[in-house]
C-alpha cells in the first residue's frame, strides 16, 4: 500500500496525446497525460465527464480506435503499446492487462450464458494461439461442450471469487437473468480470468446501487491484496476513490492536473480544480447550506489551446495561466505533482479555506424550512398529498390458461404504503434500484393507478392522470431521471416549456413572457429559448425540464433521480437551483434518489423503501444521524466515506430477494444482520418511535 520506486512501474504513460478526426477538425481528447501505475497499486483516475479519462484507458490497451495516438508513449510491463503488433497486443491484453467496462449489460454477450463467456476468457488465456473457430461453435464432430467442462469448473470458482451467490446455478444463467450487480461481477470475473497484472476498471460501479457498489469495491480491494493485481480505477466519484485507492490522478480537459497519494489529495488538495471538485460534494457541506460550484463547463476539446485549460473557470487564474506554458511541479516526499501556474497553490494550506467564499452564505430559506418540519410533523395544516394504504401489484400471468389455473404470480411493486407530503417540505424517497421508488412516484402523479388504497391531493381522492382535472394536474410538476428522454427532441426549449401553458389555454405572448421568466429562474440565458435539446448540455437540459415542471406553479414537484446522471459540479449547481426555487416559490419536493449524500443535503424528511415497503420514515437529521431500521443503517454504511482513513463498514451481504416471491414475515430479514426467528413469522407493523416511523420488530425504542 506504500509508494514504490518509479522504475518498477507496471504501466507508464508519457506525454500521451490521443485525438479524433471529425469533420469539424481534430478533437484532442487526451493532451499530454503522463502517469504511472506500480505493481500492486490501486490508482484512481478522476475527473468530470468529457475529460478524456476513458480515452486514456482505451489508449492504454490499444483500443483508442477511431481515435489515434499522435504523440507520446505507453509502456506496459516494458512493452511499448503504441508500436506493438496485433499479435503482441493480444498477448498483452490477456496476460498483463484486462478491462472492466461501465455498463455490464453492454459488455456481456446476450446469446451466451455467463459461464461460457468466463470459460472463453480462461481458454483464450491458456491457449492464446489456437483459437479455431470450430471449437467455439460447439459443432459436435469438432468440439463438444464436455471439453469445456474443465473451463466451466474454473469459471464457477471465479464466480465464487467475485462474489456471485450460488455459482453452480448461476453459471448457466444468461446475462438477462442476472441483476445489474451480478452482471458487473461476471464482467469482472471475465477480466480476472486471465489473472492480469493490471486491471483497468472504467466506472465499474457507476450504474450500481450503493450497497452493491460497496460489495464490489470490497471484492476489488480483496483481490488487490491477495493477488497483488494493480488496479486503474476510472471514476467521477471521489468517495469511491477515497475508499480504495492508494494514489489519485486528477484529469481535466485531457490533461493531468494533480497527482498524489489519496490522503494528501483529499486533505490538502493543491490544484484549484481538485479543490473545486471536492467542494462540490454534498457531504462536505452542512445540511441546508449552499453547495460550492464550478462556473462554466469543460472546454470543447477542439482547436488549439494555450495555457491551463482550467484557467477560464479558475478564480485564481492570472494572465500567465491563460497564455504561458504551465509546468508540472513535484511536491517532493512522494506527495505527488501539481500542474498549476499559480504559485500560491503550491504552498501548503494548514486547513482548507472555508467553503468557496463566493458562494458560501447559507441560504436562509432552505435552512428554516429544514428545521420546521424536521422538528416534528406540523399537524395543523392538511398534507398536500396523502397516500393511504397504497399498493401496486403487477400480474405476471402470461396467458388466459395460467390465469384460469390461478398459477399467476404477482409482483409487488409497492406494498401498503402510507405517506404524506406537506407544503414546502422536501421528502426524499431512497432505496436500492427496483425497490418501487419510481412506481410510487407514478402512483402519485397518476401515471399508474393503485391496486388498492387511495391517493389524496389537498384532501380529495384522485384517480389516474386521465381522470384528473387540469387544476389537479397542474398541482404536481414532474422532473424525470433522464433529461434527454423527457424532452421531445423535435421541440425547441421554448416550445417544450410552453407546452403545459398551452394546454391550460395561455395565448402566445403570455406564454412567451412566462417562458422567459422561467428560463431566468432556472439560470438559463434567453438565447437558449430557440435551441433544441440536443444543442444543450446535460445540466442545461435538466434545467429546462425543471422550468417545464414549475411552469404552472405547482405546489409539489416530483423529482425522479434528477441529478444522478450529472457530474458533481453540474449536480451541485442544480441542487442550488432547486433550493432557490423552493425558497422562492414555496414548493414541496418529492426527491427520489439512490444517492444518500445528495439526499442528506437536500431533504427535510426521508422515507426509506425496500421491496415495495416503507422501512423507515422520519426527519432527515434523525434518520441520518441515528437510523432506527437495520436497513437504513446498512444503506448509510455502504456510502463510500471521503475520510481516507476510515473504511466502510460491513456492507449488506447477499442479493435483494425477488419482489415476486418475497420472504415471509419481514421482507428484509434474510439480509438483516439482527434478524431473529420472530422476524420470519410475523410481518412487523409500522411503529412510531419518537419522530420516526419504522417497520421493524427489533428496532430499539
Amino acid at each position: 500500500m506504500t509508494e514504490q520506486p518509479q522504475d518498477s512501474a507496471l504501466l507508464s504513460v508519457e506525454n500521451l496525446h490521443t485525438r479524433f478526426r471529425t469533420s469539424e477538425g481534430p478533437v484532442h481528447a487526451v493532451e499530454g497525460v503522463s502517469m504511472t501505475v506500480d505493481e500492486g497499486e490501486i490508482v484512481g483516475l478522476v475527473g468530470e465527464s468529457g475529460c478524456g479519462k476513458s480515452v486514456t484507458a482505451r489508449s492504454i490497451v490499444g483500443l483508442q480506435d477511431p481515435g489515434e495516438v499522435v504523440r507520446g508513449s505507453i509502456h506496459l510491463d516494458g512493452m511499448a503499446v503504441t508500436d506493438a503488433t496485433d499479435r503482441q497486443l493480444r498477448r498483452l491484453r490477456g496476460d498483463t492487462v484486462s478491462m472492466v467496462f461501465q455498463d455490464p449489460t453492454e459488455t456481456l454477450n446476450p446469446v451466451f450464458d455467463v459461464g461460457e463467456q468466463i470459460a472463453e476468457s480462461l481458454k483464450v488465456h491458456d491457449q492464446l494461439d489456437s483459437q479455431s473457430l470450430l471449437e467455439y461453435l460447439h459443432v459436435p464432430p469438432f468440439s463438444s461442450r464436455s471439453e469445456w467442462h474443465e473451463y466451466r469448473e474454473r469459471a464457477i470458482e471465479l464466480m465464487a471469487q467475485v462474489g456471485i451467490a450460488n455459482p453452480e446455478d448461476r453459471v448457466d444463467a444468461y446475462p438477462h437473468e442476472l441483476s445489474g450487480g451480478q452482471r458487473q461481477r461476471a464482467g469482472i470475473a471475465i477480466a480476472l480470468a486471465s489473472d492480469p497484472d493490471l486491471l483497468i476498471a472504467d466506472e465499474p460501479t457507476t450504474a450500481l446501487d450503493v450497497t452493491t457498489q460497496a460489495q464490489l469495491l470490497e471484492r476489488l480491494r480483496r483481490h488487490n491484496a491477495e493477488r497483488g493485481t494493480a488496479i486503474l480505477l476510472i471514476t467521477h466519484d471521489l468517495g469511491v476513490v477515497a475508499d480504495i485507492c492508494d494514489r489519485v490522478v486528477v484529469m481535466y480537459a485531457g490533461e493531468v492536473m494533480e497527482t498524489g497519494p489519496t490522503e494528501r489529495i483529499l486533505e490538502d488538495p493543491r490544484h484549484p480544480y481538485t479543490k473545486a471538485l471536492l467542494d462540490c460534494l454534498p457531504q462536505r457541506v452542512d445540511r441546508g447550506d449552499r453547495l460550492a460550484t464550478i462556473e462554466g463547463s469543460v472546454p470543447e476539446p477542439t482547436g488549439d489551446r494555450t495555457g491551463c485549460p482550467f484557467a477560464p473557470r479558475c478564480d485564481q487564474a492570472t494572465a500567465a495561466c491563460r497564455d504561458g506554458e504551465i509546468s508540472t511541479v513535484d511536491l517532493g516526499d512522494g506527495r505527488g505533482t501539481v500542474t498549476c501556474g499559480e504559485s500560491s497553490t503550491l504552498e501548503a494550506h494548514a486547513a482548507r479555506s472555508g467553503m468557496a467564499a463566493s458562494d458560501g452564505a447559507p441560504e436562509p430559506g432552505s435552512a428554516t424550512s429544514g428545521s420546521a418540519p424536521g422538528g416534528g410533523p406540523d399537524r395543523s395544516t392538511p398534507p398536500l398529498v396523502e397516500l393511504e394504504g397504497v399498493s401496486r401489484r403487477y400480474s405476471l400471468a402470461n396467458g388466459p390458461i395460467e390465469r384460469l389455473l390461478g398459477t399467476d404470480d404477482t409482483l409487488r411493486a409497492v406494498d401498503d404504503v402510507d405517506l404524506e407530503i406537506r407544503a414546502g417540505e422536501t421528502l426524499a424517497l431512497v432505496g436500492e434500484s427496483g425497490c418501487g421508488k419510481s412506481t410510487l412516484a407514478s402512483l402519485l402523479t397518476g401515471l399508474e393507478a393503485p391496486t388498492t388504497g387511495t391517493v389524496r391531493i389537498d384532501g380529495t381522492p384522485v384517480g389516474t392522470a386521465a381522470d384528473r382535472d387540469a387544476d389537479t394536474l397542474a398541482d404536481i410538476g414532474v422532473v424525470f431521471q433522464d433529461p434527454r428522454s423527457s424532452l421531445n427532441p423535435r421541440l425547441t426549449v421554448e416550445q417544450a416549456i410552453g407546452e403545459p401553458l398551452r394546454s391550460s389555454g395561455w395565448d402566445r405572448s403570455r406564454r412567451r413572457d412566462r417562458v422567459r421568466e422561467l428560463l431566468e429562474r432556472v439560470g438559463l440565458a434567453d438565447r437558449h429559448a430557440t435551441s433544441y435539446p440536443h444543442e444543450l448540455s446535460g445540466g442545461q437540459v435538466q434545467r429546462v425540464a425543471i422550468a417545464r415542471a414549475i411552469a404552472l406553479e405547482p405546489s409539489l414537484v416530483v423529482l425522479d433521480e434528477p441529478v444522478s446522471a450529472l457530474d458533481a459540479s453540474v449536480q451541485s449547481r442544480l441542487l442550488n437551483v432547486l433550493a432557490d426555487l423552493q425558497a422562492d416559490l414555496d414548493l414541496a419536493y418529492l426527491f427520489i434518489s439512490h444517492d444518500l449524500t445528495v439526499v442528506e443535503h437536500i431533504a427535510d424528511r426521508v422515507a426509506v423503501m425496500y421491496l415495495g415497503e416503507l422501512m423507515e420514515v422520519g426527519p432527515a437529521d434523525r434518520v441520518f444521524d441515528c437510523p432506527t431500521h437495520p436497513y437504513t443503517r446498512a444503506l448509510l454504511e455502504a456510502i463510500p466515506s471521503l475520510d481516507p482513513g476510515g473504511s466502510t463498514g460491513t456492507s449488506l451481504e447477499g442479493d435483494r430477494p425477488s419482489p415476486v416471491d418475497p420472504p415471509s414475515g419481514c421482507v428484509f430479514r434474510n439480509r438483516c444482520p439482527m434478524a431473529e426467528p420472530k422476524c420470519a413469522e410475523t410481518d412487523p407493523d409500522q411503529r412510531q418511535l419518537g419522530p420516526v416511523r419504522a417497520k421493524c420488530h427489533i428496532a430499539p425504542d
Partner: protein
Amino acid sequence: MISALDIIVTGLRRRYRSIRTSRALAAFFANPLNVAGLAIVATLSIAAVLGPAVAPFDPASQDLANRLQPPTLAHPMGTDQLGRDVFSRLLYGARLSVGIAVAVTAIRLVLGTAIGLLAGYAGGWIDEFLMRLVDIQLAFPGLVLALVVAGILGPSLRNVMLALAVVGWASYARLVRGSVLSTKEREFVEAARLMGVSRVRIAVRHLLPNVVGPVIVLATMNLGTVILGTAGLSFIGLGAQPPTPEWGTMLSAGRHHLRGAWWIANAPGAAIMLTVFGFNLLGDGLRDVLDPNHDTTLEKPT
C-alpha cells in the same frame, strides 16, 4: 404583424442554422451513392416539370412517313411504329409516372400513417382491429390485388392509381404503429400526459414528428415501386391507354418491334430502371441519416 414577421424570420434563421450545421446532411453527402441517387431523382423531377416545354415534338402527333426511324439528331431516341418521337413521349411519360407515383405514395402515406398512429396510440381493440386489416392486406400479393381492382374498375390511369393506393398503405401502418408503441413509452410523452396535454395533441405534436423519419425513407423507396407498378399495369393493358405517352404502354407497344427497332422498347425500359434505381439509392441514403438507431458516421465507406 411585425411580430408575426419576426417569428417567421427567426424560425427561418433557426432552420437554416440547423440545416447548415447538420451532421445528417454532411453524412448524406459523404456517400457518393447518395449523391447519385439524389441527382437521378432531381433530373427526373426537372424532366417531369419542364418536359412539355423542352420536348421537340408533340407526343401524339403521328408522322407515318418517318416511322421506325433509328436515333438521329432530329429524333434523339428515334421514332416509333407510328412515327411519333420517342424522346418527346419519354419526357411526357416522366410527368405521368412521377405524378402518379407522388399521388399514390401520398395517399398511402397519409392513410397508413393515420391508421398506424391511431392503432399504436389508442391500443386495445382499435389496435387489434386495424392491425388485422393490415394483416389481411399484406396476405395478398400487392400487384395481383391491384390487378384485380384495376380489372374490376376498368382500364384507366385513375383506376390504376386507386388500385395501387389501396394495396400499399399497410406497410406504412405497421411501421408507424411500431415506432409509436416504442415512442409513447418515452418519458417526454409521459411528461406531456402529466401536463394535461390533450390526446390528439400528444399524437400529432409529440408522437408524429418522432416517428416520421422511417416513414419518409419508406415513401422514397416506394416511389420507385409505384412507378414500376404503374408501368406494369399499363404494360398488360390495364392502365394508360394508347396514345397516352406512358412508359409501360410504350414498352408494351415497342415489344413487337424489338428485333427491328430496339430503341422503342429500350428507351422507356431504361428510364424505368434508372428511376427506380435512383429512388432506391436516395431511400438508402435517407435511411442512413434519418434512422435514429443508426449512428451517422462521417467516415467515407471504404
